[in-house]
């Protein structure tokens, strides 16, 4: 009784706070200082048609590097606690899933690669494409088609791509304006596949890293034997 009373009070307090926020909210007429700078100068400076990607990878590149580092930490901790053991049980999935996932897997994988490569032109980018690739691997895993050796490849891939990402960022210090400046490569014609400096390169690296990390997390979580 008293517990429900407290829950009611907390809900009431939340509703009061939220009503305050909703009624006080005024939609801003113009963009803020930083946002208007990105919107005006972004396409010309970085040469990317997709403004979100150019903000994420160039202007806020350090944040993206931090995100990727957090993901790497999570994957490392999971790998530390959950040693991958070979699952001896045979896959008990239905033949429907088994057949359909073999058919669908290449399409999901290709969509992920498309999203990664076209990150600077159309919506998407490394993170989204990497998540697509990881869900493709999840489908394969559910169907019992995965190989046990794949986690080693995943760790090598994610370490290498993270290293190259930092190296590209360091090259920005030497050849361009600063750390993670993507203007180390020619900007090219805006809207073309090979344009926007090093944004596609970093996008591909992030895609490989995120895809490998998420896939290895899923593999580690699902393959761990019951006896541990």
């Amino acid at each position, binding site marked *: 009784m008293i517990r429900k009373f407290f829950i009611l009070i907390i809900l009431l307090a939340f509703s009061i706070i939220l009503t305050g926020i909703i009624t006080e909210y005024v939609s801003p007429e113009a963009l803020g200082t930083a946002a208007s700078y990105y919107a005006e100068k972004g396409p010309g400076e970085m040469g990317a048609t*997709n403004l*979100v*990607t150019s903000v994420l990878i160039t202007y806020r590149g350090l944040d993206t590097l931090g995100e990727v580092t957090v993901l790497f930490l999570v994957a490392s901790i999971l790998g530390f606690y959950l040693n991958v053991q070979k699952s001896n049980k045979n896959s008990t999935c239905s033949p429907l899933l088994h057949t359909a996932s073999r058919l669908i897997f290449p399409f999901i994988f290709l969509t992920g690669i498309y*999203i990664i490569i076209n990150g600077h032109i159309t*919506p*998407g*980018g490394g*993170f*989204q494409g990497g*998540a*697509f690739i*990881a*869900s493709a691997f*999840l489908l394969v895993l*559910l169907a019992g088609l995965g190989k046990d050796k794949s986690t080693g490849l995943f760790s090598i891939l994610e370490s290498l791509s993270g290293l190259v990402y930092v190296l590209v960022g360091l090259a920005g210090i030497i050849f361009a304006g600063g750390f993670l400046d993507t203007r180390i490569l020619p900007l090219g014609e805006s809207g073309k596949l090979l344009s926007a400096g090093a944004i596609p390169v970093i996008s591909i690296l992030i895609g490989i890293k995120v895809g490998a990390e*998420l896939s290895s997390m*899923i593999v580690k*979580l*699902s393959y*761990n034997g*019951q006896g541990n």
Partner: protein
Amino acid sequence: MILFITLVLSLVIFTVALLAVSTKTLTTSVIAAGAVSLFASLLYVILRAPDVAMTEAAISSGLMTALFFIILSRIGRKNDD
């Protein structure tokens, strides 16, 4: 029209979220939570944030749901309340 779709989507999200909290079976709850993310990603597309919509659809709706099922099968609780 856009306003109508947005309102219907919001109502659907609200209903499915209520279902996710109130249902007694864990599997229904997990699937309802995934459905909330799926409809939310549609809402993001209407709000002109396709990048966020992709992330939401792939991670929250796909990977998180699968992760919940993996964990549920590992701890061996399927139908407890």
